[in-house]
């Protein structure tokens, strides 16, 4: 009996044990081992920060200047940083849907710059004379200014509770908007060009952005990617295509190991990026947009929904997929006595790409090449009037045709290289109107503007073929153009502000850089470089005499040893020297007379 009880007990214990065993409800903490350890010590927040409120001591002017740079930095914290200068109670409140847009102003030294007026109560009124540059948006682009003021005043002084100024100066009555001096852009921001495809997907359009230097290098790629996702700048929106709708970044762009692969992970809507071409274009856009990224020194990997889709060595890929169809170095030409001569110094001498019989009575010309194909537009004098004669061909434009009309004045023709599928599209200012033509159809058609077509005095075409710069009534504009079935159309126009006035000529000097000729504050003719968003301006040539500069010719690739050429008073200059027949390439038959000087000059590229 006892044995049986024992056995039954054993069975019961076994069954209860069987029922009991399972995943436990609670356990102690179990250590699996040491986790990964951060191999870098935390970095202190490094440079890129504008000076703080108390950094200026009691120097009111420096304080005022510091106040005008306080907004520089990551856009989300702009108000916070500015408000640190403002005494409590007067602080600015962010407006709704304001992502920290900052009004960028150029301190107009000609009008007085910063003026500090002491008041009896120990405070001072600071008046800043400014030129409105634009609005720095949260996405790093600078849009057209919204403010029209030319001066701002604000009161600074010690806090009422602090008679000895030991607590530093405060802004007691701030201006009502966020202001930032344009100099802060150069100091606290890094110019970064990102690219968007045009709507034909034929070329990438550069889009200039400003990346705060306070953003660590590690986060640059992420920032660029987010900009790409956000879409092009406001003024480029009509010409630049956004990424396919629904494209979003998946997380940040991780920092690669040194020499490692930079991985960009995107999520796209189903159906987007179906073809290899789509993928390649996206890759090209990203790889060019990350051109200046220090971390992209080897491979770039594009992942779509975590799936690796493309891996390329960035430099190699960029070489294989250049931004613009530029083949070799540019060739300079000058017009002596109505004939076009090639200038010396060209890397690969190309003779003048027009038949010798055509090379006469030429006032000026514009040429473009794409491989061996050249397009030529000549402005020829016919009596009192001028007429456009255009043609195209392989290496040499053999057949040239006259345009239908004669004009009193014709500016130098320029070519939009990437616009047309059947060859480049030309632009020329004819009797103060912007006209367009093609190599095969020389009849001039007016470029259509939205609204009334303005009078135009000069025009320049960007390499991408979708942006132009023009001068109208002494003002500088950039515009996006699109070739539509009924001709070339200006779809967006943006006025740029420069410190020059009475502008007379413009050309592209780089992707995002213009050269513009006008009169500076001293009454001298000057040539300034101006960013395409007018945020930065610097002199290129000053004291160029009193005669208005009629034309500018530049090779718009930065960092190339090709000098800017300009024409003034029927004389063409390279740098500040008139172009002489000695500069003509040897072997030219017949060479120009040594006593003459060049009347016009331009680059073929």
């Amino acid at each position, binding site marked *: 009996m006892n044995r049986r009880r024992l056995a039954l007990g054993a069975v019961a214990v076994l069954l209860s044990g069987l029922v009991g065993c399972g995943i436990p409800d609670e356990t102690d903490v179990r250590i699996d081992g040491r986790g990964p350890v951060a191999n870098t010590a*935390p970095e202190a927040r490094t440079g890129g920060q504008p000076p703080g409120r108390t950094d200026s001591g009691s120097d009111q002017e420096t304080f005022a200047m510091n106040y005008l740079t306080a907004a520089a930095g990551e856009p989300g*914290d702009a108000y916070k940083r500015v408000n640190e200068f403002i005494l409590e109670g007067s602080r600015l409140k962010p407006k709704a849907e304001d992502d920290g847009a900052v009004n960028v102003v150029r301190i107009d030294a000609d009008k007085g710059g910063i003026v500090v007026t002491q008041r009896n109560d120990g405070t001072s009124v600071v008046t800043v004379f400014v030129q409105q540059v634009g609005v720095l948006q949260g996405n790093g682009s600078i849009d057209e200014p919204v403010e029209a003021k030319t001066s701002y005043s604000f009161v600074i002084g010690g806090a009422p509770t602090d008679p000895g100024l030991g607590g530093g100066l405060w802004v007691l009555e701030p201006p009502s908007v966020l202001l930032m001096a344009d100099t802060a852009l150069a100091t606290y921001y890094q110019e970064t060009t990102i690219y968007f495809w045009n709507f034909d997907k034929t070329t990438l359009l550069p889009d200039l952005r400003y990346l705060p230097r306070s953003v660590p290098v590690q986060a640059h790629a992420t920032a660029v990617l987010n900009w790409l996702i956000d879409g092009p700048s406001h003024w480029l929106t009509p010409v630049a295509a956004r990424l396919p709708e629904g494209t979003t970044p998946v*997380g940040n762009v991780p920092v690669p190991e040194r020499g490692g692969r930079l991985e960009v992970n995107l999520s796209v809507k189903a159906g987007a990026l179906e073809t290899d071409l789509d993928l390649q274009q996206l890759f090209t856009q990203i790889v060019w947009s990350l051109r200046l990224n220090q971390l992209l020194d080897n491979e770039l990997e594009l992942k779509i929904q975590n799936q690796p889709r493309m891996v390329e060595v960035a430099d190699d890929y960029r070489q294989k997929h250049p931004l613009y169809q530029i083949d070799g170095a540019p060739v300079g030409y000058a017009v002596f006595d109505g004939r076009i001569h090639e200038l010396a110094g060209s890397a690969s001498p190309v003779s003048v790409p027009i038949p010798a019989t055509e090379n006469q009575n030429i006032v000026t010309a514009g040429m473009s090449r794409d491989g061996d194909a050249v397009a030529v537009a000549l402005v020829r004098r016919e009596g009192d009037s001028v007429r456009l004669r255009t043609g195209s061909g392989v290496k040499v434009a053999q057949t040239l045709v006259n345009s239908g009309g004669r004009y009193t004045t014709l500016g130098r023709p320029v070519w939009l290289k990437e616009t047309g599928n059947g060859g480049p599209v030309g632009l020329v200012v004819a009797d103060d109107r912007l006209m367009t033509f093609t190599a095969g159809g020389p009849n001039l058609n007016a470029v259509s503007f939205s609204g009334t077509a303005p009078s135009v005095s000069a025009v320049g075409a960007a390499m991408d073929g979708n942006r132009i710069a023009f001068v109208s009534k002494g003002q500088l504009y950039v515009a996006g153009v699109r070739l539509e079935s009924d001709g070339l159309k200006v779809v967006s126009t943006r006025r740029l502000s420069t410190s020059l006035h009475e502008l007379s000529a413009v050309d592209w000097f780089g992707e995002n850089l213009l050269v513009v000729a006008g009169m500076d504050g001293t009454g001298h003719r000057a040539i300034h470089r101006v960013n395409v968003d007018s945020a930065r301006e610097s002199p290129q040539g000053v004291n160029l005499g009193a005669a208005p500069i009629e034309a500018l010719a530049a090779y718009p690739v930065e960092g190339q040893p090709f000098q800017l050429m300009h024409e003034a008073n029927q004389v063409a200059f390279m740098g500040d020297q008139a172009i002489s027949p000695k500069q003509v390439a040897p072997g030219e038959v017949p060479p120009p007379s040594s006593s003459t000087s060049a009347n016009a000059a331009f680059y073929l590229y």
Partner: protein
Amino acid sequence: MAPTLTSSSALLARAAATGRRLRRLGTVRLARSATGLHRTWRRSLQVRVVTITLVASSLLVGGFAYLVADNITEIVLDNATSDVRSRLEDGQEYASEQLSNHTNVLEQGLRATLENTVNYLAGGDPAQLGGVVVALRAGNYPGVPPATSPQVDVSGILTPGLEDRVKRGDIAHQFRTGDLFDEGPTKYLVYGSPVPTQFGQVELYYFVPLTRWDQIADGSRATVLATGFALVVLLGLLSGLVTRLVVNPVRVAARTAQRLSAGLLDQRMVVNGEDDLAMLASSFNQMATNLQRQIVRLEEMSRLQRRFTSDVSHELRTPLTTVRMAADLIYAERDGFDPAVTRTAELLHAELDRFEDLLTDLLEISRFDAGFAMLDAEPTDVVPVVRRVVDRLESLARRCGTPLEVTVPDAPVIAEVDPRRVERILRNLVGNAVEHGAGQPVVVVLAADETAVAITVRDHGVGLKPGEEKLVFNRFWRADPSRARQTGGTGLGLSISLEDARLHGGWLEAWGAPGEGAQFRLTLPARAGDRLTSSPLRLVPADASIAVADPLGWSVAIPGGGGRPGEPAEPDLPAATSDTVRATSDSVRAAAGPTGPVPSVGPAAPGGVAGSAPGALTGPREPIDPERSEVAG
């Protein structure tokens, strides 16, 4: 309950009392059922085998099931842990990559990165992911709020111990049960790992519900349990079936043997197939056949013998009658003969008398043997019967010089007996006593109680040697073969008396000791057919002087096969040699004949007096045992 009794001790006491009562009640029931179980356990081989199989297989299967279930749980846990661990490692790598963008904990985008990272790691829709929760916490930077996706409060599940370990740079995990989604408690595996970043360390936690793993473990456990249970049941059934296969033929054999032993000699087992059990059955059948043949042969022989005796007696009677007539004639005329011839005639006459007596006795015996003896029981006063016998033998006693003393009750002793047979028994006993009395007094005592009548005949002759008290009832047995037969005893008298006593359902017993004389006791039931349980008179006379060898009493070997060891009777009495003769129909049938080792007791039951006890002769003062009587009957 009184409020003062609310103390826990009082409650406990009450509970204990109730428990004790219940336990007692339970104990009683338990004991009863245990007795029943024990009985079943002892009686049924099948129950034993099945129980042992069930217990053994339960232990074995239970052990295996435990091992298997334990193993499965272990594997499931290992799987879950390594699964989550690899997820954690991937997540940690991803988070580390994502956070590589940030070099300072004060950076504006850090919070967004934390949130995006946990959202990415949690995979978006919590409903689709089975409730996995991912959290990134910057425990060392209180200014950075923790990011959790989906946004639930994990503080109930995340223990400070685990947080502390992870903060210190360990990868650690813990099983916790909690309710993150208000869907009831769920088991979670909480796994944490430090995530190195440019600005220091943050901590990544995974909270993975183990519902699926739990289901797997439960399911497999249930399967193992069900399988084990089914196996045990199957084994039990199987063992029951097998045992039944074996036990059933054995039971049939036992039943058949019982029937055989009850006399149904034509009972046989059914032989099926050629296996061991079939062999057992056929052997059993063969044995039964042989036994039956032997018994039938013996019975036939016995019958033939008895018939021969009867026939011979009958056949002798006719010539004897003729011889008797001639001898009577000669005897009547003997005075006219030569004295020598006269003596011869007298001798002839006397021997013819003896011869006639012998024939009569033989016929009587053969009637008993043939089962033709009938009891004519009628209410009779036994006192006159005793007196009549004593009176008739008075002359013989005088001749032998033996005084006869009779002690009878004053009141009539009425019993349902056959007076003729009782008289014959008494005549025989008293005659024997007178003959062997050696001139000493012979005492006849009659006594009766409510159930029985007893008569003892005491002599003081040479007595009986040990063992002779059995032999005296044998046919033609003589104490001293050389002793000349003076009185006309035939040697069958006591045998016939024994048969007569049996026919009444009574006892006839003898006691004797050398030099102490002998005493015979006849005990008869007062009502015919009643069973005797005791005798009003003692078998061993009060004046017997021989000490008892065994103070506990004396035991008597039971002649024949159907007897049983006798119980001690009259332990206070000094017993010399006495005997209790019992016979059953079986023993009688099995061992018949005058030379048998037992007193020749003819079969009384077949054709005997209706209602006479089959066990006519049983030991004195035996306690009544109904069960035994049933079995014996």
